[in-house]
């Protein structure tokens, strides 16, 4: 997902770095008119990429279930919050697409409003991601198995990631500076951490899946741990 999204959003559309929030409406309309084609094509690619992201929280959920057992509220909570990520990428991109749809024949303020909607939503919708990371952290740190599904540091890493996503929520308050949607702390830090998070979780998922396959082998010598050995607290 990240690769396709990156190609679309960054490579083609050049929407990273983001358009400056403090541009006037006419400046923004001019920018969108000038770069219309590549923004549109890039957004199409990026939206496809975002849709690929649906499988990720499902995979994480399946692994978290191994920690919690059949009644696994944390795993399902993670699934729900994680499933919101692709739509929360796609919908804001549609708003951006709408703003780039016909900027040349429309009042610039309207274009700006649609663009605002897109960027504020894309960068500012931190809540589900924060909750998803916290849920993963709780589940990982409460794993009581002798051979944990995820290494302990993954739990702490998720706590840190959640903390770093937090400043992203502040975009609705600022037009310029480090907490605006193109700012260091609201955009670049969360983007970096989100990418790192994706890579880390993907690597750890592969490790957990091969661990699961190993435990399922009848002659592996390892006693398959019955699902549900974890206790919270």
């Amino acid at each position: 997902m990240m690769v396709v999204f990156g190609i679309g959003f960054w490579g083609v559309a050049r929407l990273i770095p983001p358009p400056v929030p403090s541009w006037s409406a006419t400046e923004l309309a001019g920018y969108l008119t000038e770069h219309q084609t590549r923004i549109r094509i890039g957004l199409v690619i990026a939206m496809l990429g975002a849709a690929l992201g649906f499988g990720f929280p499902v995979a994480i959920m399946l692994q978290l279930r191994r920690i919690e057992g059949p009644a696994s509220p944390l795993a399902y909570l993670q699934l729900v919050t994680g499933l919101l990520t692709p739509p929360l990428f796609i919908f804001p991109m549609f708003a951006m697409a709408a703003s780039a749809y016909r900027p040349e024949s429309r009042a610039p303020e309207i274009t700006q409003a649609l663009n605002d909607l897109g960027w504020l939503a894309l960068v500012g919708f931190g809540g589900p991601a924060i909750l998803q990371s916290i849920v993963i952290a709780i589940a990982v740190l409460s794993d009581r198995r002798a051979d944990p599904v995820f290494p302990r540091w993954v739990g702490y890493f998720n706590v840190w990631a959640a903390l770093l996503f937090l400043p992203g929520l502040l975009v609705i308050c600022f037009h310029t500076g480090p907490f605006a949607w193109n700012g260091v702390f609201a955009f670049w830090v969360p983007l970096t951490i989100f990418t790192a998070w994706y890579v880390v979780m993907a690597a750890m998922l592969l490790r957990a899946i091969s661990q699961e396959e190993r435990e399922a082998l009848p002659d592996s010598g390892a006693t398959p741990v019955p699902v549900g050995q974890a206790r919270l607290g």
Partner: protein
Amino acid sequence: MATISDGDTQTAAPRPHRHLPGEEGTWVLILGDMTVFAVFFATYLYYRGEQPELFAESAQSLEPGFGVINTLLLLTSSLCVVIGIRAVRRRRTRLPPALFAGSLACGLGFSAVKFVEYRELLSAGITPATNSFFMYYFVLTGLHFFHLVLGMGVLVYLIRVSRLPELGARRLAFMEGGACFWHMVDLLWIVLFPLLYLVR
């Protein structure tokens, strides 16, 4: 988790017994968070450098006394935590909960002072949008306060768990890690207080 460093058996003096407080992952979180805050601090000083008079003048509206009280509260709470953790290691079950509760009380005191401070500023019409200085003031102290609230949650956990007679190595490591998180909250305020209130 105790790591005994390699000792050269030929030397007469024994190597010291090295102990990692918490777990490895704890320090991913703590050092990572400290680094991000360090970037915040540097950013603040950078933007202050662009408008030193504005920042100095705005800082006059702050009351350093509040900052001192908050610093002393957090220092005391950290003292309680470290004595508490040591008591836990010695299998005490009555002293540690009391000490952690004391830390929590200090944390609540800090929160109360923060509320008073914010309320005073807001009722004087000063908000994060007033100017650059106050944006940094509210965001930095707000982010720190969020960590403080998280830390108080950890303290509640420590109060509960330190009553148990049997802990196990993993839980003890987690408790140590939680204690270090609280010390980090103290540590960040030790920089924040002079940065915002004292450095002109």
